[in-house]
């Protein structure tokens, strides 16, 4: 592929990576569970688009299946399942936070800086002539940190799932950025793992809600007869 096209692909990947990072921050900044799910769908869609661009720009056709699966499972199937769970349990807002929103946003901003310095030391000297997609490594590390942060500071079980999925998106993105994606068999394994996990967690949330009349994980601290 000629250099100008490659440059365009690089620019598009940069924009999509920025958009992915922004969706992760919007999850941190909002309260509505429905909005979380929509943002996650959008994030996965952008992730699928990055994978498709890697196929187009670098000729790595083995990612094609993973890209299609990303869009089909993460951007469509999982959000549909989660929306139905939300509809059935009638919980729409995340109300209790361990850390309030402005402070969480600032902490996540700090995490991006941390992620960038880590990515710098991983990529080291080859940074200058590495392909555009490797610049995304800092974004992917930041996504893993933000996902973990969402899981530790939010108390609703749905939000915990969104945090987990954000981390998973980060892992997929880092795979893309370093080695143009993991081997297909690993990717497919992860996809089904995630899909089944979300299905089971969905049922689980429903049961938690029925037993405790809330999906706040605080209720899970004590054992019940």
């Amino acid at each position, binding site marked *: 592929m000629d250099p100008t096209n490659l440059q365009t692909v690089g620019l598009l990947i*940069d924009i999509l990576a920025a958009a992915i*990072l922004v969706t992760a921050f919007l999850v941190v900044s909002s309260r509505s569970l429905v909005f979380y799910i929509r943002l996650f769908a959008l994030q996965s869609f952008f992730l699928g688009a990055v994978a498709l661009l890697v196929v187009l720009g670098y000729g790595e056709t083995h990612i094609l299946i993973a890209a299609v699966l990303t869009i089909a499972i993460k951007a469509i199937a999982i959000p549909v399942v989660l929306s139905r769970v939300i509809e059935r349990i009638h919980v729409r807002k995340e109300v209790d936070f361990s850390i309030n929103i402005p402070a969480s*946003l600032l902490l996540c901003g700090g995490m991006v800086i941390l992620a960038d310095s880590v990515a710098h030391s991983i990529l080291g000297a080859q940074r200058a002539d590495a392909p555009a997609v490797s610049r995304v490594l800092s974004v992917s590390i930041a996504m893993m940190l933000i996902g973990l942060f969402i899981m530790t500071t939010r108390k609703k079980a749905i939000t915990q799932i969104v945090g987990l999925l954000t981390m998973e998106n980060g892992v997929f993105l880092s795979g893309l950025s370093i080695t143009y994606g993991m081997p297909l068999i690993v990717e497919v394994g992860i996809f089904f793992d995630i899909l089944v996990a979300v299905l089971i967690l969905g049922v689980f949330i429903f049961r938690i809600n029925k037993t405790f009349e809330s999906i706040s994980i605080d209720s899970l601290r004590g054992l019940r007869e």
Partner: protein
Amino acid sequence: MSGAPAIVILSLLQLLLLLASAPLISGIIAKTKARFQHRQGAGILQPYFDLAKLLRKEVLVSPVASWVFRSTPYLVFASTLVIALLVPTVVVPVPLDWVGDIITVIYLFALGRFFVALAGLDTGSAFGGLGASREMSIASIIEPAMMLAIFTAAVTAGSTNLSVIVATLSSTPASMLNPAHLLAFSGLFIVTMAETGRVPVDNPDTHLELTMIHEAMILEYSGRYLAFIEWSSQMKLAIFLALLSNMFFPLGMATTLAPWALCVGCAAFFAKVIVLAAIVAVVESTNAKLRLFRVPELLMVAFILSLLALILYFIVGA
């Protein structure tokens, strides 16, 4: 055309352009909002009639008001006029670009805001104090977000001079799509909504006691004082829209003083500002005003977007 007379003429023309078009921009936003609410709405020239009416009316000043109250409208208007001379609108470089850079612009706005807040406190009315305290607490969160967004543009251009920023960007059009650039733009857009008192933060249309910010501070003003303050707020909006469009998308700006280039520049300026004004109206119509305690969250999003922009500039490069 060069030398001192040219600088004076060009600067005056630029000043007149912003002075004359500012009420029109507010009129367009008000009309668009009215159409969204299925109302006919006042004509887009209504702000001009309002200003003319206010200028003719008698000024009533509270007997306890001091010189701060009387001088504030002129101070605010004058500082806005100076900013209007510094911001690139149609032609770049701005004739007076050596007078001050973007940081001067930010702090001239802060000067105006400081005096409006003082004047709000000056008459001793409860609403004035309420508005002043709200305005200053919000301003303290807006300022870092605005600084970071603007620094992203400044770092890209390697200068804080507005004309240099605009000229550098128009010579490399590809960098307009840089993600850092787009994020800084969205950060500055939220800042604009907050800074000019638009809907998610403040409502410019009503004097609703409990929620007003800007209107509460200027509640005691009447006649030509009110006219000057209103006109300055309209110009502030026009200047912010000009900054947003020219610092981030300087398409079509005139770089020479040829008549044709100036015409294209004028048309491009109005097209961009009207598009942005329409976006402002859409955002205002589709969002509810935030509770005051939620405003810091929105502004923190603007701050984080600007911070991300600056970080991405170093991750991705210009």
